[in-house]
């Protein structure tokens, strides 16, 4: 007699995999950390997304000092000020986008808020393959402590591919 595993892993049986959604949309916040990344994100925001929203942290160069509030530290792409903690509160994932060689110090503020709220973080570094390792290492030093996953991508299109793969 055929074993259960043999019967169940056939192509014929694969057709009977239940055809019902097995997830609900995730809330994903994509935040540009610098000007060049902001341009990339603005393009991206034009496309259709289920549940991704796009922000920039570039307008607020100076980090709040200890004890100072995070409020008003983020803005949407139209330039309206947003409350960082509020935005992160409901998120399943925060994606930070940085251009290698740019100042990514905003990562620590966002990262701290995410770790406070137990939100998963991913950092995407663009242009890391076309820049000296010394410059890249400065960006990495700012991102690493705050990114559970860090990707150094050569093609800007990777962000869109990643968001699609994550059902954003």
């Amino acid at each position, binding site marked *: 007699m*055929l*074993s*259960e*595993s*043999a019967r*169940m*892993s*056939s*192509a014929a*049986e*694969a057709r009977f*995999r239940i055809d019902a959604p*097995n*997830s609900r949309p995730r809330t994903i916040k994509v935040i540009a950390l610098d000007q060049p990344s902001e341009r990339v994100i603005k393009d991206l925001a034009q496309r259709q997304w289920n549940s991704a929203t796009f922000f920039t942290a570039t307008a607020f160069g100076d980090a709040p000092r200890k004890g100072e509030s995070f409020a008003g530290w983020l803005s949407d792409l139209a330039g309206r000020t947003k409350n960082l903690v509020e935005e992160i509160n409901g998120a399943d*994932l925060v994606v930070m986008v940085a251009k290698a060689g740019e100042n990514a110090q905003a990562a620590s503020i966002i990262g701290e808020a995410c770790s406070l709220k137990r939100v*998963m*973080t*991913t950092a995407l570094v663009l242009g*890391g*393959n076309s820049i000296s*390792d010394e410059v*890249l*290492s*400065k960006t*990495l*030093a700012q991102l*690493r402590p705050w*990114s*559970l*996953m*860090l*990707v*150094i*991508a*050569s*093609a800007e*299109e*990777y962000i869109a*591919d*990643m968001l*699609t*793969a*994550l*059902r954003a």
Partner: protein
Amino acid sequence: MLRKEQNDLLTQTGPGTPMGRMFRLNWVPALLAEELPENECPPVRVKLLSERLLAWRDTQGRYALTDEFCAHRGISLWFGRNEDNGLRCPYHGWKYDHTGQCIDVPSEPEESGFCKKIKLKSYPLIERGGILWAYMGPPELQPPPPAWEFVNVPREQTITTKRSQECNWLQALEGGIDSSHVSFLHRGDLNTDPMFKGAKGNQYNLSDSRPFFEVVESPGGLYIGARRNAENGNYYWRITQWVMPTFTMIPPRGDHCVHGHFWIPMDDENCWTWSYDYHPTRSLKESEVNAVRGGKGIHVTTIPGTFRPVQNKDNDYLVDRAAQKAGKTYSGVLGFGMQDASVQESMGPVVDRSKENLVSTDNGIIMMRHRLLRTLKAMENGETPPGIDLAHQRVRSAAVVLPPDQPFKDAAKEAMIAKPGVAPATV
């Protein structure tokens, strides 16, 4: 998640398919040299990239990889008589040489020259490192022989096995670059398997089961780094290599051998899992060779006379629920290799990737697919895919402790290039 068209594009490798074309531009492992042990030995049936082929070795030791079926009325030349510099079909006596050229049609007058009009499709087959490699692409694009370190070190430093796996090549590859499953699926085996135990790095692995990941594009494919905390604020990195389309190299542990895989499609629902173990600077110990032969490490035991694993889907992989409950194995299946194969086969022959829910730690997989798809596009414009350049093949995985701010593609640059006689970077 992948849309159906993308999934089809990446999983289909038969003649005329884009992904099949990428495979065909490379030398792919076809069979172990020991399968054709001597001149005029019995031929071996090989299915590769959805093509039925026959591998054989003629009177002078020339390797042949030809169409499996006789041009006359289509019987399998597996029954052929391997004699006098050719393979003769036992049905009506047509005979072929190692290039597939027909050299005798007994029923026709020799003067007619009829046999010159008959030629079986054939592909170059060469031996390197105990493996017979096939090149199934256009002759004018045939690259130089493979430069992978494990096939070019002295024979006593390297050993390779193969086994059949009953699922599409891509889901097997995805398992190979998915570092985050090790702490679960293989949890029980890290400190007991003879091919892994005792390395200092294991302690970092076991004391920190939620590593940080870093995915970086490399010239030939990807570096996938898993980072854990080491002493003095440093990081312990394990860096896996993926080279397009299907080569992986797992980071070493201590002075153990280094290992990795190729997954080569037989057809779209089956693949060959090739597993190698080698040491860049020393001979393998007898105990290591025995461990490999005994199915330890990433290898498995196969049914004698075949390359089918002893634990297979027909016997439910000999799943042991008591061992699972007791925590000896995490899934109930024994051994690294079959733990991987069993879960991958359970996904079905070609998994429907429109139903998956990837998460952030799957970025290695997402990037691998992204690079393959991008490369397929670039190939439309005549570009050569990564992985064919021999420099892309001279790579190593690494296990290193580095300061916190260093990009590993810089700090571990030397460690990730294969240099003859240079010891691997390993913890």
